[in-house]
Protein backbone atom coordinates (compact mmCIF):
# COMPACT_ATOMS: atom_id res chain seq x y z
CA UNK A 1 0.00 0.00 0.00
CA UNK A 2 1.31 3.45 -0.93
CA UNK A 3 1.29 6.37 1.46
CA UNK A 4 -0.73 9.31 0.15
CA UNK A 5 0.49 12.83 0.82
CA UNK A 6 -0.77 16.33 0.15
CA UNK A 7 1.74 18.54 -1.64
CA UNK A 8 -0.40 21.53 -2.54
CA UNK A 9 -3.64 23.25 -1.57
CA UNK A 10 -5.63 26.10 -3.06
CA UNK A 11 -8.80 27.93 -2.19
CA UNK A 12 -11.23 30.44 -3.68
CA UNK A 13 -13.97 31.08 -1.19
CA UNK A 14 -16.31 33.62 0.37
CA UNK A 15 -13.81 34.21 3.19
CA UNK A 16 -10.79 34.75 0.93
CA UNK A 17 -9.61 34.39 -2.64
CA UNK A 18 -6.38 32.59 -1.74
CA UNK A 19 -4.72 30.76 1.15
CA UNK A 20 -3.34 33.89 2.81
CA UNK A 21 -6.66 35.72 2.82
CA UNK A 22 -8.46 32.64 4.09
CA UNK A 23 -5.93 32.15 6.88
CA UNK A 24 -6.64 35.71 8.07
CA UNK A 25 -10.39 35.11 7.97
CA UNK A 26 -10.16 31.83 9.85
CA UNK A 27 -7.96 33.51 12.42
CA UNK A 28 -10.34 36.43 12.85
CA UNK A 29 -13.61 34.53 12.64
CA UNK A 30 -14.72 36.51 9.60
CA UNK A 31 -18.02 35.66 7.94
CA UNK A 32 -18.57 35.64 4.17
CA UNK A 33 -22.38 35.74 4.40
CA UNK A 34 -24.63 38.51 3.05
CA UNK A 35 -28.32 39.14 2.32
CA UNK A 36 -28.95 39.16 -1.44
CA UNK A 37 -31.99 41.36 -2.21
CA UNK A 38 -32.28 39.88 -5.71
CA UNK A 39 -33.11 36.47 -4.23
CA UNK A 40 -35.93 38.07 -2.26
CA UNK A 41 -37.28 39.61 -5.46
CA UNK A 42 -37.50 36.07 -6.86
CA UNK A 43 -39.49 34.83 -3.88
CA UNK A 44 -36.75 33.08 -1.97
CA UNK A 45 -37.82 32.30 1.60
CA UNK A 46 -34.29 33.27 2.56
CA UNK A 47 -32.05 35.68 0.67
CA UNK A 48 -28.98 34.74 2.71
CA UNK A 49 -25.94 33.52 0.80
CA UNK A 50 -22.19 33.45 0.76
CA UNK A 51 -20.92 36.23 -1.49
CA UNK A 52 -18.33 35.56 -4.15
CA UNK A 53 -17.13 37.49 -7.21
CA UNK A 54 -16.10 35.70 -10.38
CA UNK A 55 -12.40 35.89 -11.18
CA UNK A 56 -11.34 37.83 -14.28
CA UNK A 57 -9.81 35.22 -16.56
CA UNK A 58 -9.63 37.25 -19.76
CA UNK A 59 -5.95 37.50 -20.64
CA UNK A 60 -5.20 34.40 -18.56
CA UNK A 61 -7.24 31.78 -20.42
CA UNK A 62 -8.14 31.89 -24.10
CA UNK A 63 -11.68 32.45 -25.32
CA UNK A 64 -12.36 28.78 -26.09
CA UNK A 65 -11.49 27.80 -22.52
CA UNK A 66 -13.55 30.61 -21.01
CA UNK A 67 -16.63 30.00 -23.16
CA UNK A 68 -16.85 26.41 -21.89
CA UNK A 69 -16.49 27.23 -18.18
CA UNK A 70 -19.35 27.80 -15.75
CA UNK A 71 -18.57 30.02 -12.77
CA UNK A 72 -17.59 27.17 -10.46
CA UNK A 73 -15.04 25.91 -13.01
CA UNK A 74 -13.54 29.41 -12.87
CA UNK A 75 -13.33 29.18 -9.09
CA UNK A 76 -11.78 25.72 -9.45
CA UNK A 77 -9.25 27.04 -11.96
CA UNK A 78 -8.15 29.64 -9.41
CA UNK A 79 -7.84 27.18 -6.52
CA UNK A 80 -6.09 24.61 -8.69
CA UNK A 81 -3.59 27.11 -10.10
CA UNK A 82 -2.73 28.09 -6.52
CA UNK A 83 -2.37 24.45 -5.42
CA UNK A 84 -0.14 23.58 -8.39
CA UNK A 85 2.08 26.57 -7.64
CA UNK A 86 2.44 25.48 -4.02
CA UNK A 87 3.21 21.91 -5.08
CA UNK A 88 5.86 23.15 -7.54
CA UNK A 89 4.15 21.45 -10.46
CA UNK A 90 4.83 23.03 -13.85
CA UNK A 91 2.78 22.74 -17.05
CA UNK A 92 5.64 20.68 -18.49
CA UNK A 93 5.46 18.22 -15.62
CA UNK A 94 1.73 17.71 -16.24
CA UNK A 95 2.31 17.25 -19.96
CA UNK A 96 4.96 14.60 -19.40
CA UNK A 97 3.49 12.67 -16.48
CA UNK A 98 0.22 10.97 -15.70
CA UNK A 99 -1.65 13.30 -13.34
CA UNK A 100 -5.38 12.86 -12.86
CA UNK A 101 -8.29 14.96 -11.66
CA UNK A 102 -11.25 14.10 -9.43
CA UNK A 103 -13.57 16.88 -8.33
CA UNK A 104 -16.79 16.92 -6.39
CA UNK A 105 -19.64 18.75 -8.08
CA UNK A 106 -23.38 18.16 -8.20
CA UNK A 107 -24.97 20.94 -10.26
CA UNK A 108 -24.42 23.51 -12.98
CA UNK A 109 -27.57 25.53 -13.18
CA UNK A 110 -27.47 28.71 -15.33
CA UNK A 111 -26.28 27.00 -18.52
CA UNK A 112 -29.11 24.45 -18.26
CA UNK A 113 -31.71 27.17 -17.72
CA UNK A 114 -30.38 29.40 -20.51
CA UNK A 115 -30.32 26.55 -23.03
CA UNK A 116 -33.86 25.44 -22.22
CA UNK A 117 -35.10 29.04 -22.34
CA UNK A 118 -33.63 29.52 -25.83
CA UNK A 119 -34.94 26.23 -27.21
CA UNK A 120 -38.43 26.81 -25.78
CA UNK A 121 -38.63 30.40 -26.98
CA UNK A 122 -37.05 30.06 -30.42
CA UNK A 123 -37.55 26.39 -31.32
CA UNK A 124 -34.02 26.58 -32.72
CA UNK A 125 -31.03 24.88 -31.11
CA UNK A 126 -28.53 26.75 -33.30
CA UNK A 127 -29.04 29.76 -31.05
CA UNK A 128 -27.73 27.93 -27.97
CA UNK A 129 -24.04 28.46 -28.76
CA UNK A 130 -21.01 26.25 -28.30
CA UNK A 131 -20.28 26.62 -24.59
CA UNK A 132 -23.61 25.54 -23.17
CA UNK A 133 -23.16 21.78 -23.23
CA UNK A 134 -19.75 21.96 -21.58
CA UNK A 135 -20.99 24.39 -18.96
CA UNK A 136 -24.14 22.49 -18.14
CA UNK A 137 -22.83 19.00 -17.43
CA UNK A 138 -22.13 17.85 -13.90
CA UNK A 139 -18.62 16.96 -14.98
CA UNK A 140 -18.00 20.49 -16.23
CA UNK A 141 -15.24 21.25 -13.74
CA UNK A 142 -13.14 18.16 -14.42
CA UNK A 143 -13.64 18.29 -18.20
CA UNK A 144 -12.57 21.94 -18.35
CA UNK A 145 -9.62 21.73 -15.97
CA UNK A 146 -8.28 18.52 -17.50
CA UNK A 147 -8.03 20.29 -20.86
CA UNK A 148 -6.65 23.57 -19.47
CA UNK A 149 -3.95 21.83 -17.42
CA UNK A 150 -3.39 19.11 -20.06
CA UNK A 151 -3.89 16.23 -17.65
CA UNK A 152 -3.39 12.65 -18.76
CA UNK A 153 -4.58 10.55 -15.83
CA UNK A 154 -7.94 9.66 -14.31
CA UNK A 155 -10.60 12.25 -15.13
CA UNK A 156 -14.13 12.29 -13.76
CA UNK A 157 -16.50 14.03 -11.37
CA UNK A 158 -17.85 12.69 -8.12
CA UNK A 159 -21.44 13.63 -7.34
CA UNK A 160 -22.27 12.86 -3.74
CA UNK A 161 -24.41 15.82 -2.73
CA UNK A 162 -22.86 17.81 0.12
CA UNK A 163 -20.17 15.16 0.58
CA UNK A 164 -18.99 15.38 -3.06
CA UNK A 165 -15.70 17.16 -2.37
CA UNK A 166 -14.82 14.81 0.47
CA UNK A 167 -15.61 11.70 -1.56
CA UNK A 168 -13.47 13.08 -4.43
CA UNK A 169 -10.47 13.27 -2.09
CA UNK A 170 -11.37 9.84 -0.72
CA UNK A 171 -11.48 8.34 -4.22
CA UNK A 172 -8.16 9.98 -5.08
CA UNK A 173 -6.65 8.62 -1.88
CA UNK A 174 -7.81 5.08 -2.68
CA UNK A 175 -6.51 5.24 -6.26
CA UNK A 176 -3.06 6.35 -5.16
CA UNK A 177 -2.99 4.03 -2.15
CA UNK A 178 -3.66 1.07 -4.40
CA UNK A 179 -1.15 2.15 -7.02
CA UNK A 180 -3.42 3.18 -9.89
CA UNK A 181 -2.16 6.79 -10.00
CA UNK A 182 0.84 8.75 -8.73
CA UNK A 183 -0.76 12.17 -8.62
CA UNK A 184 -4.38 13.35 -8.60
CA UNK A 185 -5.71 16.90 -8.42
CA UNK A 186 -8.69 16.56 -6.09
CA UNK A 187 -11.21 19.10 -4.94
CA UNK A 188 -14.71 20.41 -4.84
CA UNK A 189 -16.56 23.24 -6.56
CA UNK A 190 -19.85 24.94 -5.89
CA UNK A 191 -21.73 27.51 -7.96
CA UNK A 192 -23.16 30.64 -6.28
CA UNK A 193 -25.84 32.29 -8.39
CA UNK A 194 -29.41 33.46 -8.32
CA UNK A 195 -31.09 30.22 -9.39
CA UNK A 196 -28.79 27.41 -8.25
CA UNK A 197 -30.40 26.89 -4.83
CA UNK A 198 -34.03 27.77 -5.60
CA UNK A 199 -35.11 24.16 -5.20
CA UNK A 200 -33.16 23.89 -1.96
CA UNK A 201 -34.81 27.07 -0.65
CA UNK A 202 -38.17 25.48 -1.49
CA UNK A 203 -37.57 22.98 1.32
CA UNK A 204 -37.37 25.80 3.85
CA UNK A 205 -33.90 24.58 4.81
CA UNK A 206 -32.19 27.98 4.84
CA UNK A 207 -31.80 30.26 7.85
CA UNK A 208 -34.37 33.07 8.04
CA UNK A 209 -32.17 35.27 10.23
CA UNK A 210 -32.02 37.89 7.49
CA UNK A 211 -31.70 40.81 9.90
CA UNK A 212 -28.26 39.52 10.97
CA UNK A 213 -26.68 37.80 7.93
CA UNK A 214 -23.33 37.15 9.58
CA UNK A 215 -25.01 35.56 12.59
CA UNK A 216 -27.30 33.34 10.51
CA UNK A 217 -24.96 30.37 10.13
CA UNK A 218 -24.64 29.12 13.71
CA UNK A 219 -23.80 25.42 13.70
CA UNK A 220 -24.47 23.58 16.97
CA UNK A 221 -26.01 26.70 18.56
CA UNK A 222 -29.34 26.25 20.30
CA UNK A 223 -31.00 28.98 18.21
CA UNK A 224 -29.79 27.70 14.80
CA UNK A 225 -32.59 27.78 12.24
CA UNK A 226 -31.13 26.50 8.99
CA UNK A 227 -28.12 26.63 6.72
CA UNK A 228 -26.80 29.45 4.54
CA UNK A 229 -25.88 28.38 0.99
CA UNK A 230 -22.44 29.34 -0.21
CA UNK A 231 -19.74 28.22 -2.64
CA UNK A 232 -16.39 28.59 -4.37
CA UNK A 233 -13.75 25.94 -4.97
CA UNK A 234 -10.95 24.15 -3.17
CA UNK A 235 -8.10 22.00 -4.46
CA UNK A 236 -5.85 19.45 -2.82
CA UNK A 237 -2.93 17.84 -4.71
CA UNK A 238 -2.63 14.20 -3.69
CA UNK A 239 0.56 12.31 -4.45
CA UNK A 240 2.14 9.00 -3.83
CA UNK A 241 4.77 9.62 -1.13
CA UNK A 242 7.57 7.99 -3.06
CA UNK A 243 7.07 10.05 -6.20
CA UNK A 244 6.57 13.24 -4.15
CA UNK A 245 9.92 12.65 -2.42
CA UNK A 246 11.53 11.84 -5.74
CA UNK A 247 10.56 15.15 -7.29
CA UNK A 248 11.47 17.06 -4.11
CA UNK A 249 7.91 18.24 -3.50
CA UNK A 250 6.93 20.18 -0.38
CA UNK A 251 4.99 17.65 1.69
CA UNK A 252 2.30 19.34 3.73
CA UNK A 253 0.32 16.48 5.24
CA UNK A 254 -0.68 12.87 4.81
CA UNK A 255 -4.13 11.43 4.22
CA UNK A 256 -4.30 8.41 6.51
CA UNK A 257 -7.96 7.47 6.57
CA UNK A 258 -11.12 7.52 4.51
CA UNK A 259 -14.47 6.13 5.60
CA UNK A 260 -17.81 6.14 3.88
CA UNK A 261 -21.33 4.84 4.35
CA UNK A 262 -24.92 5.33 3.38
CA UNK A 263 -27.66 5.91 5.95
CA UNK A 264 -30.23 3.96 3.97
CA UNK A 265 -32.98 5.78 5.83
CA UNK A 266 -34.31 9.08 4.47
CA UNK A 267 -33.78 11.34 1.45
CA UNK A 268 -33.21 14.52 3.46
CA UNK A 269 -33.08 13.74 7.19
CA UNK A 270 -29.59 12.65 8.27
CA UNK A 271 -29.17 9.69 10.57
CA UNK A 272 -26.78 8.91 13.43
CA UNK A 273 -25.72 5.37 12.60
CA UNK A 274 -24.50 6.16 9.06
CA UNK A 275 -22.03 8.83 10.22
CA UNK A 276 -20.89 6.60 13.10
CA UNK A 277 -20.07 3.85 10.60
CA UNK A 278 -18.23 6.23 8.23
CA UNK A 279 -16.15 7.76 11.03
CA UNK A 280 -15.39 4.31 12.49
CA UNK A 281 -14.28 3.09 9.08
CA UNK A 282 -11.96 6.09 8.67
CA UNK A 283 -10.42 5.49 12.12
CA UNK A 284 -9.95 1.82 11.30
CA UNK A 285 -8.41 2.66 7.94
CA UNK A 286 -6.02 5.08 9.66
CA UNK A 287 -5.29 2.42 12.31
CA UNK A 288 -5.71 4.92 15.13
CA UNK A 289 -8.04 5.28 18.09
CA UNK A 290 -10.34 8.29 18.65
CA UNK A 291 -7.91 9.66 21.27
CA UNK A 292 -5.45 10.48 18.47
CA UNK A 293 -7.79 13.03 16.88
CA UNK A 294 -6.80 16.55 17.94
CA UNK A 295 -9.47 18.41 16.03
CA UNK A 296 -12.74 17.61 14.28
CA UNK A 297 -13.91 19.85 11.48
CA UNK A 298 -17.60 19.03 11.75
CA UNK A 299 -20.01 18.83 8.86
CA UNK A 300 -22.53 20.81 10.99
CA UNK A 301 -24.44 23.08 8.62
CA UNK A 302 -26.62 24.90 11.17
CA UNK A 303 -29.78 22.86 10.58
CA UNK A 304 -31.62 21.76 13.73
CA UNK A 305 -31.73 18.00 13.05
CA UNK A 306 -28.48 17.67 11.09
CA UNK A 307 -26.30 19.21 13.79
CA UNK A 308 -28.13 17.30 16.50
CA UNK A 309 -27.49 13.95 14.83
CA UNK A 310 -23.86 14.73 14.05
CA UNK A 311 -23.40 15.75 17.70
CA UNK A 312 -24.85 12.38 18.75
CA UNK A 313 -22.55 10.52 16.37
CA UNK A 314 -19.45 12.40 17.53
CA UNK A 315 -20.41 11.89 21.17
CA UNK A 316 -20.76 8.13 20.65
CA UNK A 317 -17.21 7.85 19.29
CA UNK A 318 -15.38 10.75 20.95
CA UNK A 319 -17.40 11.27 24.14
CA UNK A 320 -14.55 10.03 26.29
CA UNK A 321 -11.77 12.13 24.74
CA UNK A 322 -13.65 15.25 23.64
CA UNK A 323 -11.37 16.67 20.93
CA UNK A 324 -11.77 20.32 19.93
CA UNK A 325 -14.54 20.79 17.39
CA UNK A 326 -15.60 23.62 15.13
CA UNK A 327 -17.69 23.99 12.03
CA UNK A 328 -16.08 26.45 9.62
CA UNK A 329 -19.51 26.70 7.97
CA UNK A 330 -20.25 29.21 10.74
CA UNK A 331 -18.07 31.60 8.71
CA UNK A 332 -18.35 30.35 5.14
CA UNK A 333 -21.95 29.17 5.07
CA UNK A 334 -22.53 25.75 3.57
CA UNK A 335 -20.25 25.31 0.57
CA UNK A 336 -22.13 22.14 -0.38
CA UNK A 337 -20.41 20.22 -3.23
CA UNK A 338 -17.18 22.04 -2.38
CA UNK A 339 -17.36 21.78 1.41
CA UNK A 340 -15.68 18.40 1.84
CA UNK A 341 -12.61 19.67 0.01
CA UNK A 342 -12.53 23.23 1.35
CA UNK A 343 -12.77 22.01 4.92
CA UNK A 344 -9.66 19.89 4.38
CA UNK A 345 -7.91 23.04 3.13
CA UNK A 346 -9.17 25.11 6.10
CA UNK A 347 -8.08 22.41 8.55
CA UNK A 348 -4.63 22.13 6.96
CA UNK A 349 -4.22 25.91 7.36
CA UNK A 350 -5.05 25.44 11.06
CA UNK A 351 -2.65 22.48 11.31
CA UNK A 352 0.18 24.47 9.72
CA UNK A 353 -0.40 27.48 11.97
CA UNK A 354 -1.28 25.65 15.20
CA UNK A 355 -4.74 27.01 15.84
CA UNK A 356 -8.37 25.92 15.73
CA UNK A 357 -10.66 28.35 13.93
CA UNK A 358 -13.71 29.41 15.88
CA UNK A 359 -17.22 28.08 15.48
CA UNK A 360 -18.56 31.64 15.39
CA UNK A 361 -22.11 32.32 16.59
CA UNK A 362 -22.00 29.37 18.98
CA UNK A 363 -23.38 31.14 22.02
CA UNK A 364 -25.49 28.51 23.73
CA UNK A 365 -25.47 24.73 23.29
CA UNK A 366 -28.54 22.52 23.26
CA UNK A 367 -29.03 19.19 25.00
CA UNK A 368 -26.93 17.34 22.41
CA UNK A 369 -24.30 19.86 21.38
CA UNK A 370 -23.46 20.56 25.04
CA UNK A 371 -21.74 17.17 25.11
CA UNK A 372 -19.11 18.28 22.60
CA UNK A 373 -15.98 20.41 23.02
CA UNK A 374 -17.02 23.12 20.52
CA UNK A 375 -14.95 26.27 20.52
CA UNK A 376 -16.69 29.59 19.75
CA UNK A 377 -13.34 31.39 19.87
CA UNK A 378 -9.98 30.80 18.22
CA UNK A 379 -7.81 28.33 20.15
CA UNK A 380 -4.07 27.94 20.01
CA UNK A 381 -3.58 24.25 19.42
CA UNK A 382 -0.97 21.94 18.03
CA UNK A 383 -2.85 19.74 15.58
CA UNK A 384 -1.11 16.52 14.70
CA UNK A 385 -4.17 14.73 13.31
CA UNK A 386 -7.60 16.02 12.32
CA UNK A 387 -10.82 14.47 11.11
CA UNK A 388 -13.28 16.05 8.71
CA UNK A 389 -16.91 14.97 8.31
CA UNK A 390 -19.10 15.50 5.26
CA UNK A 391 -22.66 14.27 4.87
CA UNK A 392 -25.22 14.75 2.13
CA UNK A 393 -28.76 14.23 0.88
CA UNK A 394 -29.69 10.62 0.38
CA UNK A 395 -27.66 9.77 3.48
CA UNK A 396 -24.23 9.75 1.86
CA UNK A 397 -21.45 10.04 4.45
CA UNK A 398 -17.73 10.66 4.06
CA UNK A 399 -15.00 11.03 6.64
CA UNK A 400 -11.33 11.89 6.04
CA UNK A 401 -8.43 11.78 8.49
CA UNK A 402 -5.32 13.85 7.79
CA UNK A 403 -2.06 13.81 9.70
CA UNK A 404 0.95 16.12 9.84
CA UNK A 405 3.69 14.62 7.71
CA UNK A 406 6.55 13.04 9.64
Amino acid at each position, binding site marked *: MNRVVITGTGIYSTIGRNLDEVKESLFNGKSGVVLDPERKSYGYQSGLTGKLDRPQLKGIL*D*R*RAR*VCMPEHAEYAYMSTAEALRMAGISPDYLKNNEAGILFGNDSSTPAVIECVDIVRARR*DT*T*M*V*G*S*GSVFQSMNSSVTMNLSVIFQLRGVNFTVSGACASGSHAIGMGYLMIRHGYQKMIICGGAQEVNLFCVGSFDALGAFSKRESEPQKASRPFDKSRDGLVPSGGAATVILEDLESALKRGAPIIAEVIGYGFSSDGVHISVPDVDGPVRAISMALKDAAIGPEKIDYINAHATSTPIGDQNEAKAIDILFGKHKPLISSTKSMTGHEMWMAGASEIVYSIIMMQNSFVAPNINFTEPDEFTSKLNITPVIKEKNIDTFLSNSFGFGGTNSCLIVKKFN
Partner: protein
Amino acid sequence: MTREDIVKTINGLLIEEFEIDENAIKPDAHLKNDLGLESLDFVDIAVIVQKEFGLTLKGEEMTSIRTLQNLYDYIFNCIQKK
Protein backbone atom coordinates in the same frame (compact mmCIF):
# COMPACT_ATOMS: atom_id res chain seq x y z
CA MET B 1 -27.14 47.32 -45.00
CA THR B 2 -24.12 47.93 -47.21
CA ARG B 3 -21.27 45.51 -47.80
CA GLU B 4 -19.04 47.91 -45.79
CA ASP B 5 -21.43 47.69 -42.84
CA ILE B 6 -21.26 43.89 -42.95
CA VAL B 7 -17.46 43.88 -43.13
CA LYS B 8 -17.22 46.36 -40.26
CA THR B 9 -19.63 44.38 -38.06
CA ILE B 10 -18.01 41.00 -38.72
CA ASN B 11 -14.49 42.29 -38.24
CA GLY B 12 -15.45 44.06 -35.02
CA LEU B 13 -16.99 40.87 -33.63
CA LEU B 14 -13.98 38.77 -34.57
CA ILE B 15 -11.66 41.20 -32.81
CA GLU B 16 -13.82 41.80 -29.74
CA GLU B 17 -15.64 38.51 -29.19
CA PHE B 18 -13.15 36.05 -30.66
CA GLU B 19 -10.04 37.99 -29.61
CA ILE B 20 -8.46 37.69 -33.05
CA ASP B 21 -5.47 39.91 -33.81
CA GLU B 22 -6.64 42.91 -35.84
CA ASN B 23 -3.67 42.51 -38.22
CA ALA B 24 -4.83 39.02 -39.18
CA ILE B 25 -8.21 40.27 -40.38
CA LYS B 26 -7.94 40.33 -44.18
CA PRO B 27 -10.57 39.36 -46.78
CA ASP B 28 -8.56 36.40 -48.00
CA ALA B 29 -7.81 35.13 -44.47
CA HIS B 30 -8.73 31.47 -44.10
CA LEU B 31 -11.04 31.13 -41.10
CA LYS B 32 -9.37 27.98 -39.78
CA ASN B 33 -5.79 28.20 -40.99
CA ASP B 34 -5.20 31.94 -40.65
CA LEU B 35 -7.63 33.05 -37.95
CA GLY B 36 -7.41 29.84 -35.87
CA LEU B 37 -11.16 29.32 -35.71
CA GLU B 38 -12.35 25.75 -35.11
CA SER B 39 -15.62 23.91 -35.57
CA LEU B 40 -16.95 24.94 -32.14
CA ASP B 41 -16.31 28.60 -33.02
CA PHE B 42 -18.53 28.27 -36.10
CA VAL B 43 -21.40 27.37 -33.77
CA ASP B 44 -20.94 30.75 -32.08
CA ILE B 45 -20.49 32.55 -35.40
CA ALA B 46 -23.90 31.16 -36.44
CA VAL B 47 -25.43 32.64 -33.27
CA ILE B 48 -23.81 36.01 -33.95
CA VAL B 49 -24.91 36.06 -37.59
CA GLN B 50 -28.46 35.31 -36.48
CA LYS B 51 -28.44 38.05 -33.86
CA GLU B 52 -26.74 40.70 -35.98
CA PHE B 53 -28.25 40.00 -39.39
CA GLY B 54 -31.31 37.84 -38.70
CA LEU B 55 -29.92 35.03 -40.86
CA THR B 56 -29.88 31.36 -39.98
CA LEU B 57 -26.70 29.66 -41.12
CA LYS B 58 -27.25 26.04 -42.07
CA GLY B 59 -24.55 23.44 -41.45
CA GLU B 60 -24.16 22.54 -45.14
CA GLU B 61 -23.83 26.22 -46.08
CA MET B 62 -21.22 26.77 -43.41
CA THR B 63 -18.93 24.19 -44.99
CA SER B 64 -18.57 26.31 -48.13
CA ILE B 65 -17.49 29.35 -46.14
CA ARG B 66 -13.73 29.10 -45.91
CA THR B 67 -12.42 32.67 -45.98
CA LEU B 68 -13.58 35.93 -44.49
CA GLN B 69 -14.53 37.07 -47.96
CA ASN B 70 -16.78 33.99 -48.29
CA LEU B 71 -18.49 34.98 -45.05
CA TYR B 72 -19.00 38.62 -46.08
CA ASP B 73 -20.37 37.48 -49.46
CA TYR B 74 -22.68 34.91 -47.95
CA ILE B 75 -24.22 37.43 -45.55
CA PHE B 76 -24.46 40.12 -48.25
CA ASN B 77 -26.17 37.77 -50.70
CA CYS B 78 -28.64 36.52 -48.11
CA ILE B 79 -29.57 40.07 -47.17
CA GLN B 80 -30.03 40.99 -50.83
CA LYS B 81 -32.42 38.06 -51.29
CA LYS B 82 -34.52 39.05 -48.30
